[in-house]
Structure formats: C-alpha cells, structure tokens
C-alpha cells in the first residue's frame, strides 16, 4: 500500500444519509475475480438512468466537477454490505478521501486497509464543506494526515481524530498482514493452548458430514 501523507484535491458534495455500499457499487459489478473495471460501476444507478443515459442532476456527471478527488458525504457513509469493491471502485475513479459525519464500520476498515482516507467531522462542518463545494464547484480541500487537519479554500479549518494505528497505517503504507505474521509464534502458541482447553474448536469446519 502506498503511503498517504497529504491529500489536496477538488471536492463534491453527496447529500445522502446512509449511502450504502449497494449504491456505491451495485451487485452487477461484483462478478469479477480481480479488482479491475470497478470505476464503471461506481454510483452506477445514481449516475445513469434505466436507459443508460447520464443523469445530469448527479453531481459527478457535471463537467464542473470532473476530476474531483474528495467526496463530502452524509452520515453513515458506506453502511450495509461488506463488499470491499466499494472502496476499490472509489479509488479507481480517482477518489482519495471521503469526509462525512460517520462511516459504516466494515467500510471504514476496508478503506484503511487500502489507503482511502476517511475523515470524520461534526455535521456542521461537513455541511459547510458541502455548501462550499456546491457554491464553488470543485472547492479545494487539503487534508494532512500527519497533523490531522483539514482546510478548505472556502475557509473551513478543522482538526479531526483518527486512531493512532490507522494514522500510522496511512503514513507508512503498512502491510498489515506482514506485520501480523511477525506474531506467528505467539499465534501458534495461542492456538495450541486454546485447543487444549477447548478441543472441540480445532478443525471445527470439518465437524460433521456433508460438503466435502
């Protein structure tokens, strides 16, 4: 994963509460065995009508918002299905950060695992950022992961919080699996003790007949 230290980009407002991952990446784009081609599916039913025509009212279809890399979203952004395709699709479409009052939990973990920066700010500041992005198309937003600060061209200045582990993952572009594998001996010792105390949990996937 590439380190993420500072993001500066143009922004667009998506004024939708509970924008679920089904809407971010609809089911018909989940049929691959790789991560390719997902920008096609991003916000598909919001971007296109039933005949495949662009909906001119949707902000990301408007020329003034071409190339935005920061989305300003409503509360509970990314709730619902666990599909990580939603994060991959946002990144493939050039989105590097999402700012919202709150995020779905699995979506949040997925984003951190891929270096998509999520910034949680109070409703009032998010609303100001939305208003700015609507008033001045592509209003520029700067986010610094080192100092955990956000400032916009329109004048919003905010500090945000992030768990130190997530901050470090972004700044260092950590390979979480590689890091956890350094605990291999402890994991094996844990498993041995765990199964000695609860032998009915070892190979529990093979507990009964059926399947293979």
């Amino acid at each position, binding site marked *: 994963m590439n380190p993420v230290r500072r993001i500066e980009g143009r922004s667009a407002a998506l004024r939708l509460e509970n924008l679920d991952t089904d809407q971010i990446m609809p089911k018909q784009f989940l049929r691959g065995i790789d991560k390719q081609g997902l920008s096609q599916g991003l916000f598909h039913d919001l971007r296109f009508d039933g005949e495949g025509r662009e909906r001119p009212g949707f902000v990301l279809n408007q020329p003034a918002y071409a190339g935005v890399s920061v989305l300003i979203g409503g509360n509970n952004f990314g709730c619902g299905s666990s599909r990580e395709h939603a994060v991959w699709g946002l990144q493939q479409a050039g989105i590097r950060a999402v700012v919202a009052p709150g995020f779905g939990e699995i979506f949040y973990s997925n984003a951190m695992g891929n270096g998509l920066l999520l910034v949680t700010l109070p409703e009032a500041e998010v609303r100001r950022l939305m208003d700015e992005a609507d008033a001045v198309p592509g209003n520029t937003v700067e986010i610094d992961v080192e100092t955990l600060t956000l400032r916009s061209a329109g004048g919003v200045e905010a500090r945000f919080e992030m768990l130190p582990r997530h901050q470090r993952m972004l700044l260092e572009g950590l390979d979480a699996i590689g890091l956890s594998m350094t605990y291999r001996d402890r994991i094996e010792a844990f498993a041995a003790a765990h199964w000695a105390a609860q032998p009915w949990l070892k190979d529990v996937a093979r507990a*009964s007949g059926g399947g293979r």
Partner: protein
Amino acid sequence: MTITNTVIGTIRASDAADAADAKDIIDSPVATPDPKSSNAPPRTLYRKLVDGHTVATLDAQNVLLFCDLHLMNEYTSPQAFTGLREQGRGVPMPGQQVAVVSHIIPTHAVPSALRVIADPPSALQASNLKANCDRHGIRLFDTTDALQGIEHVVAPEHGMIRPGMVVICGDSHTTTYGALGALGFGIGTTEVEHVLATQTLVYRVARDMRIRVDGPLPAGTTAKDLVLAIIGRIGAQGARGYVVEFCGTTIDALSVEARFTLCNMAVEAGARGALIAPDATAINYVLARSPDLAGEWREPALARWRTLRSDPGARFDAEHRFDAADIGPQVTWGTSPDQVAPIDGHAPDPARMAVGPARDSAERALRYTRLEAGAALAGTPIQHVFIGSCTNGRIEDLRAAAAVLRGRRVAPGVRAMVVPGSGAVRAMAEAEGLDRVFLDAGFEWRQPGCSMCLAMNDDVLADGIRCASTTNRNFEGRQGRGAITHLMSPAMAAAAAVTGRLTDVRRLPPVLGEESPR
C-alpha cells in the same frame, strides 16, 4: 408504539473515527483483567469473548484476535486468494475455514446434481473458489452439493458454530451467530486475506450495548417484527461502534432460529456484533448437530459454556429497553431498514418532519418507493413475494409461511417464490410436505441460495415491481434497479401473497371450513 427506552451514560452516533469517540476509546484502554483474580472487575459476555481470543494487545484500542471459524463465499474471497498467491503466503490452519457457493448461484428448480451456473463470470467465480479451496485443503459446499445453501444457514446446521467462538466472514450478516453465544462479524476482502494467512484479525474492541426485551410477543408477531421495531427505534446508526447483547424474557423464549433472525439484522442498526448468552435452548441446538460432542468433550464443553454470560454488575456503555407487548407486525416503507412502521401504520409525511437529514431521507425514500406521504401501508398493492435469505430462510420461517398459505391461493397477478436457506432446509420442508403447501398455493419452490435478497444471480426484479420480502435490506436497487422492497416476516409475506397487498396477517379472513386462519 410506546417503547420505553432507557439510556445509561452517553450514547452518540459512534464510529471508529468519530472525533469524540476516538477520545473515549483512548480514555478507556483495552482491559484484559486476570480472570483468576478475585477482585477482577465484572465483565460483559462480549469482553469475555474478546479476552478469550486475544493473542496480543497491539495498542490501546486494538488486539490481535484469534478467529475460530472463517466462512467464505465466491465473491468476496477471490482477490484475497490472489493476494496470498502474489505474496507467496499459505493458509496455515485450513480446518478453521469453510466455503460455500451462495450468492451467485441460480435457484431454478432442477435437481441439485444438475445445477449449473450459466452466466460465465459467475461460473468463473464458482470454479475459482473450488480451485482455491482445493489448493489450500479447505472444505467447500459447491454448486451441485445437496447441502449447499446460504453460508449463514449452512454453517450452524453442521455444528460448526459453537458457543464462545469467534466467527468471521466476508459478509456483513455474520452477526447471526450471536444467537449461539458466538461473536460473529463481517469483514472486507483485505481482512479475508489477513485471516487466511494468520488466523487472526487486527480488531478494534467495540463498546458494550445491552438491549433488554421483556414479555411475550403478541400473536402474529415474530423475531423479524421485533428486530425491525428495534432498528426503527434506535436507527440505522443506533448501534454503530457497539456489540449488542440481547436479553430479557422475550429473548429467553425465542427459538434458536428466531434468535438467528434477531442477531442477523442487528447489523442493520450498525452493530459490530450481536450476542445472546447461551442457555439450554442454544446448547441443545448445538449438541443436536455436533456428534463429536457426545463423548468425553460434552461435560467440559458444558462447563465452559456456563461461564458465557455477563457478570452481575458488568458495565454497559448504553442500554435500551423494550416491552414486547408494544410490538406488532412491521413493514418497511422506505429505503433503509429503519424506515419502518407497524402494518396498521402509515408512511410519514415529510412536510410534518423537522427540516434536516431525516426529512430529506424520508422524501427521497418515498419518491423511490412511490408511496404517498402519510399513506396507509396496509392495502398497498404488491406484484412479487420473496420468502428466503439468511434472515428468514430456515425451516421455522417456511413453516410460518406455510401455516398462512394452507388452503389459500396466491392472488392473481402476483409472482411468489420460496428459496430455502439450504439444501438441508429444503429436504426437511419436503419431508414435512411444506413444498406441496407452497406449490398448491401457487408459489415457486426453488433451490437454495441468497437469490433475490441481493439479486446477484438471475433472480432480479424489474423496475417498479413492488415486493413483499423476508430479506434484510430495502436499499435502492437492492432487488433490481427501480424495484421496491418492503421488509417483513414470513407470515406477513405469505399474507401479502394471498391478498396481493400489504396485509396485516392478524386480519386475514379465515379459510372456509377452518375455525382459525392460523
């Protein structure tokens, strides 16, 4: 509905990165008290499960959590296996993994052995899953397996879910397993790769919420109605950042399958997990499906499972109380599971709501669901009925629907289908003659899978079709672009099928020649 609601401490819409929240969590670091120490503070069931699976404490918020069982499906795992291959990593503990072809499989009524996936990309996902399982020695319920089904229905049927386990899956409805006192939660594909390679996850410890429900559920009211009412009350974000423990006399009286329904949908309130302390009901369910626990392991297992409850005095960060007597059959009117009302209620009138995001959401939802502001919900015409899913695709769900359908017919112009949750559920239903009840009523009796819950296979609704559905999400486009989903219980879906309208199952006219409709 007057549901009492007590809040202890501060509840706020919480999130890992919520500014105030992050501070709270830092202020209360992960405690791993020595359980042998007599003055150890009382712990919740959730904390006991986390402590019992902590390989290492990584920092003030995160632990390295050991996972007892990892379930996989065909669409959220492929990229994880690719990642392993690219890094030259293996799967050190294959006996703790299981895979099921569940989401993309067609459900046409052909014999199991003859099931084929015609769609080339979906067929590739299934064959790719088989290749990955073969390579790593992982048990698979494949396309033509007579026991194939929805992952969350299959795993408990085979005794793979036991009290005290940590169970994860690349699917948000993994919260289901709380019904058996196992901590289950959904993960993304990067985490699927992590658990395959290490059998652990980097896990941020959640906060504790308790939801107590007391009293008998009124007639015609089920666990589905209960969970919809709870989500409606606390909201789609109401349990975000929490693991919810359900308790109270209502919960004690629920069957294990009803508890699956309840815990399954806790994620629709944003919960990171759901738990019910395992009692005799749960333990008997597990023992009946676990031949390996009949011998010498039985007593030590029972002794261990008796400790799986919150200690007296254990502190919960938030608490809600509900009175079951106040709950009746529910139906959703919007595009989020918390947009729900009793069947004898109405869609909201946004003009009468305070200006703000909730009003905007209600306006947008009513536009999508094509309901008039303030309209009565009962009587709304429907064109489709779907009975199935990991929420309501088990044998008790099919029995409840069949009880309504016996002696009745699906209304003209309505297409109705039953998709059993698994091959085992299907076989059991056939042994009881339920397939005849559904077929005689005019339902389609299909093969198992996730099917129209998320419409990733060929079971997709057309634009504008209104569906009475026993599934878990009424999101825009979930069952097909422009299709409208009303979530409800199996009995309510059956009632909608016979009248062709959203219908209060308690008011269905009796079948001629029978004393009582149910």
